[in-house]
């Protein structure tokens, strides 16, 4: 195991005395970099200090100080703690920050998101379009002075909606009596739709020219989605084709953009937990885990010993059912409609029974609390977990492998297709099983252990080829490792309280910032939370794995066939709730 390096050992200020200062605000860490020197400093961070994986980029709007901040979180793929660096710019349009896309191409979508939601222009970004909202949308919604149509009050809990015994509806406070807001003197009949020329232009610009070079062929653009059975929800992909070969590809998202960030900044800390359930809706337990870990970091509170074990048990069960479904869905997309996924769902139901027994809900568990969990595991549920972990799941995993792994069609469709090499995977900030299948043994449970993962004996699943077959097989490896962790956790789990804190409707969170991350079944799930001491987070940002992993798709697909793309989407294991938030 790599010894975790703390941020203090890196003396960025000594190296760049004129352009870097340490962030000295109480509760904050990292460095503030001068905007003019950002590219130079970032290059040094990557090349000289070895932070090769830039996972999170996001904006923060400090309205009172009249500043806009861009926060970067860089990590090493060899493990250890990360480096946070920030750029501050004055909050006067146009807000411009140099793009880091040449240093870490993985920032592509995240910079576009910051442009879309904060209006921060990243100069040098080749394709700076809106990503979650549509072109032509009025305003940048995450700015603190931007109010949504149903705006009621700055922060929850709201004052009574029954001031004189009568219920008032949010609709009635809006002049359009709906979730709408138009600029003054707007005339819908004279409005000219800007359309999607920019999308198609960028598709044209980035496409390969002349695949074989001999014959001149007409290129066609195919839009897959947002309603398409293989896109796992409402993703849309604009593909430029030369015959059946993909020569250019742009994902279009935001069809499930449910404004988690904006709503989360209005909620109290506790109210956000059920919202995190709905991010990656296959793994509500993991999402809870990521969020409470981050806020606990900020609150500096311990977690009850028994609760730590319960958390690990739930997170690993969640991982197992996620991977089983992944396998089922991959088979669906390869054409074996339903049968394997029926097997997968059978096991999933048993895991959901456990979730229901402990939390009361099948899918949206809302189970974790700051300092522990909300309820203890009842005895019958513990027995169910034991039955599953020691008997049923190992046998069923073997069975699944026996049925599928050597199937000729499956091997033909997966082997050697869509190879992602380790270098590219790191470059595009890919995390999770996809990165490990490319040969990088980077698993946060080992690389930067959180909770009590350092107590368990398990191997980081890793494969070497980075093709679809390895991506498929690594899921089985991970199920086996999760079972190993579960076996140990079940044996070691102590008796005791399940929460270190008293139950409370509101928690006190000291001012400061925290970036917490966990190894969710899809990759690194990060939460960036800024507190200003009030009951609501000042900034609440989710760094979803699906969203960033999708950055690599474009380069992986060029020159391959369109039919394989369907399988690729399944292989990346994207979930729209998390992707669009």
């Amino acid at each position, binding site marked *: 195991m790599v010894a975790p390096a703390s941020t203090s050992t890196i003396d960025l200020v000594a190296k760049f005395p004129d352009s870097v200062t340490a962030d000295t605000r109480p509760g904050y860490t990292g460095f503030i970099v001068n905007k003019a020197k950002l590219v130079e400093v970032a290059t040094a961070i990557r090349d000289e200090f070895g932070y090769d994986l830039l996972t999170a980029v996001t904006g923060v709007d400090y309205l009172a100080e009249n500043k806009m901040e861009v926060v970067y979180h860089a990590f090493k793929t060899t493990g250890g703690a990360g480096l946070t660096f920030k750029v501050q710019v004055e909050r006067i349009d146009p807000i411009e920050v140099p793009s880091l896309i040449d240093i870490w191409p993985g920032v592509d979508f995240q910079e576009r998101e910051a442009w879309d939601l904060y209006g921060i222009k990243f100069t040098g970004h080749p394709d700076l379009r809106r990503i979650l909202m549509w072109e032509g949308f009025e305003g940048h919604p995450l700015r603190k002075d931007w109010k949504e149509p149903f705006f009621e009050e700055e922060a929850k809990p709201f004052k009574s909606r029954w001031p004189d015994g009568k219920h008032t509806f949010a609709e009635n406070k809006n002049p359009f009596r709906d979730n709408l807001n138009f600029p003054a*003197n*707007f005339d819908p009949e004279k409005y000219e739709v800007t359309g999607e020329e920019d999308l198609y232009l960028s598709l044209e610009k980035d496409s390969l020219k002349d695949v074989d070079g001999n014959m001149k062929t007409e290129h066609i653009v195919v839009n897959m989605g947002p309603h398409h*059975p293989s896109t796992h929800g409402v993703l849309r992909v604009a593909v430029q084709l030369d015959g059946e070969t993909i020569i250019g590809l742009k994902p279009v998202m935001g069809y499930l953009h449910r404004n988690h960030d904006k709503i989360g900044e209005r909620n109290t800390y506790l109210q956000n937990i059920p919202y995190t359930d709905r991010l990656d809706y296959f793994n509500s337990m993991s999402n809870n885990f990521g969020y409470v870990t981050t806020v606990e970091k900020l609150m500096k509170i311990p977690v009850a010993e028994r609760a730590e074990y319960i958390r690990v048990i739930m997170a690993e069960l969640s991982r197992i059912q996620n991977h089983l479904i992944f396998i089922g869905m991959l088979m669906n997309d390869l054409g074996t409609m339903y049968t394997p996924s029926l097997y997968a*769902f059978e096991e999933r139901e048993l895991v959901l029974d456990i979730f229901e027994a402990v939390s009361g809900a099948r*899918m949206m568990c809302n189970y974790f609390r700051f300092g522990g969990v909300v309820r203890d595991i009842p005895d019958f549920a513990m027995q169910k977990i034991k039955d599953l972990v020691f008997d049923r799941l190992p046998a069923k995993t073997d069975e699944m492998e026996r049925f599928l792994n050597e199937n000729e069609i499956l091997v033909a469709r997966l082997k050697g297709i869509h190879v992602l090499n380790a270098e590219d995977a790191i470059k595009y900030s890919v995390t999770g099983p996809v990165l490990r299948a490319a040969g990088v043994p980077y698993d946060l449970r080992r690389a930067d252990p959180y909770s009590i993962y350092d107590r368990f004996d398990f191997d980081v699943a890793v494969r070497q080829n980075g093709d679809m077959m390895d991506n498929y097989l690594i899921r089985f490896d991970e199920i086996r490792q999760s079972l190993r962790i579960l076996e140990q956790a079940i044996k070691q789990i102590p008796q005791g309280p399940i929460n270190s804190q008293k139950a409370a409707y509101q928690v006190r969170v000291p001012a400061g910032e925290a970036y917490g991350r966990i190894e969710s079944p899809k990759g690194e799930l990060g939460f960036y939370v800024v507190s200003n001491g009030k009951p609501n987070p000042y900034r609440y940002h989710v760094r979803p794995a699906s969203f960033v992993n999708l950055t690599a798709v474009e380069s992986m697909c060029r020159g391959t066939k369109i039919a394989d793309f369907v399988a690729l989407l399944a292989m990346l294991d994207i979930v729209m709730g998390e992707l669009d938030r």
Partner: protein
Amino acid sequence: MENEKLSLPNYSIPEDIQNVVAVTTLDRLYNWGRRSSVWPLMFGLACCAIEMIAAQTARYDMARFGMEVMRPTPRQADMMLVSGTVTKKMLPSIIRLYNQMPEPKYVVAMGACASSGGPFKEGYNVVAGIDKFLPVDVYIPGCPPTPQALIAGLIKLQEKIDKQSIKHVTWYNKEKKDGNYVPMPILGPDLIDVRRNAEIRDVAAVKESA
């Protein structure tokens, strides 16, 4: 109650042919066929879609009600199951899908989001309920509804189908040519519902003078 009478016509059948002859009404036969083969549009929006899939698997098995044939194309589907949060960006696609479905067609709003916006109602990109645009037949509460709740909702839809009569249904009405066509909303500075153009213009003008 009129339908009930129609379904039980008062004909006496001679005893010796009671085993081979059954008398029913055309309505009842027609509705029996339709209610036992409601094909949903294969269309998942968000979290609820996962419970919709779960309802199709072995434990809950929607096939028992003739609803297992999910059609990815709207042109072969009878029922649109709006399973999740409807966002403004997605709405034009949903309306287009609905308009492409042949009559008779039904809409089921599954879960809190599709019914009213649910926990995300205050979000700037969220439509507060699909019923602002499409005629919803059945609302299913829950966040997400369990597969049992979904099946209960679909049984309610079957009950609704049972009560329809060829005489009155809109899709044989020659005067109503474009049936349930819903005009496409436009994505402008915000979502433009073209049916409300005049209202939007007037309110925006008031905003200017204020």
